[in-house]
């Protein structure tokens, strides 16, 4: 029997998520990472664990899929937090969960910044409808908005946020500011000018550039559309300052010490590459990073038997059962080794990032017990880091 590769990496710092989630100083946990890596499940498991550890928690999920709803046994999540049934409240904690309704949150923002009459005008505008339901950054922006609303309510010790399923994890940081800039931007001002003054004075103020702009836009999309845009930005104009201020305030909130970013990844090249970018970005922006959660790690039960030895033995035997069992082991050893190498690349580049690993579960998580098992795994890995 040959020597199997050791799967421990003493040089990797272990992430103790219990220490993060149960610390009364932690007010906000943001779970981020690329799509399909188990962000929502991690957020829900962390929220549940903190709640059963005695904290009063709300989990905010943005993903329009029914994932969190399923795993928390809720049939519907709307734009306001609901209590999750079936949690252990002996330690004095509680758990609420909600799913972001992007359009409704945007409507709330508009209402908070303007009169009811003006709000109606804005709601009726086709451009508002497009912007509030499908602009690529709106979801991220509204997630931030919702987070600050929940913060302002002050009803919870801990808010766990699951980030939107962006194609890139970085969108989450950039989109709110991008939207804020956009709504406050030069083009909007150009368009508002003629709505305010007479068209001619507006054009004069803006110079020849606007004349060309207006001509081209009219040619391409038609005057009716241009009028819609104009009235939309005109109506929104009173809110510009507010939009920008709020985006900035939430961004600042994320930099405070009470916030902990948890980067979630799966042991796959793309997911870990995204995690890498994100970690670099967080550090560049001085955002507080707790560490990396590596989901779906394949766990080997008999690490002392190498893949090669198992495979070789399987090839020589007639016993189909034992041969199959050995091949399953060999396959898993190879996978675990690939994953170890991928993680090694990540930790090599980011030696200071603490890591915790969650084993791949044979069954998909769809209830509280499943979430508890994930929570246990998050904590177990960290306790394994203690010296024996």
């Amino acid at each position, binding site marked *: 029997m040959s020597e199997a590769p050791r799967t421990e990496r003493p040089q990797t710092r272990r992430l103790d998520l219990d220490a993060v989630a149960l610390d009364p100083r932690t007010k906000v946990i943001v779970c981020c990472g*690329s799509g399909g890596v188990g962000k929502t499940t991690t957020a829900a498991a962390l929220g549940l664990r903190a709640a059963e550890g005695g904290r009063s928690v709300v989990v905010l999920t943005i993903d329009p899929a029914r994932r969190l709803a399923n795993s928390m046994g809720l049939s519907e999540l709307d734009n306001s937090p609901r209590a999750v049934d079936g949690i252990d409240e002996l330690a004095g904690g509680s758990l609420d969960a909600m799913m972001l309704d992007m359009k409704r949150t945007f409507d709330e923002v508009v209402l908070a910044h303007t009169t009811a009459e003006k709000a109606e005008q804005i709601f009726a505008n086709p451009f508002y409808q497009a912007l509030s339901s499908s602009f690529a950054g709106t979801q991220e922006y509204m997630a931030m908005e919702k987070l600050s609303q929940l913060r302002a309510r002050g009803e919870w010790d801990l808010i766990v946020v699951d980030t939107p399923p962006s194609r890139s994890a970085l969108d989450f940081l950039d989109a709110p500011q991008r939207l804020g800039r956009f709504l406050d931007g030069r083009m909007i001002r150009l368009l508002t000018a003629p709505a305010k003054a007479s068209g001619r004075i507006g054009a004069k103020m803006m110079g020849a550039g606007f004349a*060309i702009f207006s001509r081209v836009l009219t040619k391409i999309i038609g005057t009716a559309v241009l009028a819609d845009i104009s009235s939309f930005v005109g109506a929104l104009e009173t809110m510009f300052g507010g939009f920008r201020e709020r985006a900035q305030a939430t961004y600042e909130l994320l930099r405070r010490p009470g916030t902990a970013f948890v980067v979630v990844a799966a042991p796959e090249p793309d997911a870990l590459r995204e995690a890498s970018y994100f970690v670099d970005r967080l550090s560049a922006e001085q955002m507080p990073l707790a560490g990396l959660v590596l989901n779906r790690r394949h766990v080997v039960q008999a690490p002392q038997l190498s893949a090669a030895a198992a495979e070789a033995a399987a090839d020589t*035997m007639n016993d189909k059962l034992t041969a199959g*069992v050995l091949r399953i*082991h060999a396959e898993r050893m190879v996978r675990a080794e690939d994953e170890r190498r991928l993680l090694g690349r990540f930790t090599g580049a980011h030696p200071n990032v603490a890591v915790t690993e969650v084993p791949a579960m044979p069954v998909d998580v769809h209830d509280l017990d499943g979430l508890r098992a994930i929570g246990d795994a998050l904590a177990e890995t960290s306790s394994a880091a203690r010296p024996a």
Partner: protein
Amino acid sequence: MPDREWPPARLHVVTGKGGAGKTTVAAALAIALASGGHRTLLVEVEGRQGIAQLFDTPPLPYAERRIAVAPGGGEVCALAVDAEAALMEYLELFYNLARAGRLLRRMGAIDFATTIAPGLRDVLLTGKVKEAVTRVRDGRRVYDAVVLDAPPTGRITRFLNVNTDVAGLARVGPIKTQSDGVMAVLRSSQTAVHLVTLLEEMPVQETKDASAALTELGLPVGAVLVNMTRAPLLPARELSRAAAGRLDLDQIQATLREAGIDADLAPALALEAGEHATRNALEEGYRKELQALALPTYELPLLNPPMDLGGLYELAEVLVAAGVAHE
């Protein structure tokens, strides 16, 4: 083996849940469709440069270039469509407004227009794809097939249903005409929207949802492409016993001993086999759910990571062997 035939489309839109391997499958499909002397175009629209990474080439410009050859003399070209560049091209082509376009870009107007009207952005992206599908040179089609690495299932209906998105913004005018033209191609039998999935709960659910939503919009659903499948490594009877935790440990121990392997490992190995069997049983369930969609279904095996160019050709071969071909 699929019980239904590969759709004879010319535009193959590939969508799927994030993490299901959409880009990889789209690339393998582009190679498979080019096999036997055809020419295909692989297009991406999300600015991710996923194709360049996959083929290990420098980032793709907004220009079509050959990135691979296919078995039997075919070739695969690739294009990364960018909304801004597409709009500039559109302005130049239809309005001879190249200079104005540049000025607009400097003012941030293009960014503005594609931001304020997300539907406009999608019209530009799909419009470019449509142009490639219908492009003719010297009396023949430039591309036999176009494969679009489209946005994920969560956004696919909004992305493809450009008409409705734009209708709210432009009821008449050139943008409307353009989106009508795109929609006509997308709704025709020239197009097939393929769904990439994994044998896991959420991807299967999203596949079912997307199939229903696309059908409702009159968009032709093509095939289901099940990615990263694994064959069971135990005989069927043993699989169910393994899942129930009732494998014959004595037998395993005896055989291990004979093979010179520590027999004490038997319980640990049986545990691994149990998880394998449980996973396999779940996957069988998801397979049945997908079968109920009654769509042609193809399975692509899990290859050892990292995914490389050789792996892409391997997957393309699997597709060709299963009957995926151009016309």
